[in-house]
């Protein structure tokens, strides 16, 4: 599920791929929480290759966001597919998550 993990100037950038659904939740949640815990708490999630997400996938994003905020960090979402964007808008989470189509803009927000 996790494709790549990079770090630029203390900001973690994790790319996910495939479906982010109930079956994947325990593994992805654990890996992302470890990333937040061990890093600066500033995280960009690149979801370009995530074609489908359900509410349990969204709950992972919320858990990670809460963990990041707890250590004064932040989480930005990058490159949402139309399906994932429509789920996030349906649940109005675009009011919580900063969303970007451009990595440089996401990095600027988290610096």
């Amino acid at each position, binding site marked *: 599920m996790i494709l790549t993990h990079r770090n630029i100037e203390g900001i973690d950038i994790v790319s996910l791929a495939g479906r982010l659904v109930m079956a994947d939740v325990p593994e992805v949640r654990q890996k992302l929480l470890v990333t937040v815990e061990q890093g600066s708490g500033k995280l960009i999630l690149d979801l370009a290759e995530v074609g489908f997400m359900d509410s*349990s996938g969204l709950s992972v994003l919320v858990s990670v966001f809460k963990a990041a905020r707890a250590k004064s960090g932040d989480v930005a979402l990058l490159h949402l597919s139309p399906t994932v964007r429509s789920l996030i808008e349906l649940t109005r989470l675009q009011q919580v998550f900063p969303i970007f189509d451009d990595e440089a803009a996401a990095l600027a927000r988290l610096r």
Partner: protein
Amino acid sequence: MTRTIGLDIESRPECIELLSGALYGMCQPVLPAAEIAKINLAMVEAVNNAVEHAYHGEPGHPVRVELELAPDRLGLRVQDHGQPMPPGRLEAAAAFVEPDPEDPETWSMRGRGLFIIRSCMDTVEYEARDGVNTLSMSRLLATGESA
């Protein structure tokens, strides 16, 4: 022409993807991608509820999904034999809690599955009878079936 399909899976999260494959196989030739995506999301959320709440995440129990594709509507039924949904839960899902960026308590996804289902489908009904729980949903189709 109305086409129907019935699918039985075990109550394991890993099995739910199989249902999406069948739904896309049935609908892709005749429905726009955005329409199928909404129906798929409603189906996945409904089956998630059966696995997570009716069976408390326990594998080895049956979940049945029935799809009925007519020229002007798609019907979807999800059945389980687990614990019924508490009365009023479906109606309560209409009361959406707006996420507030400053209040983490409002970010929870708990209960959002039913809200998502109601948003994606035109009708949603729930019945628990004789040990069988059935969530029946339908969506009117913008594009009729051409086959």
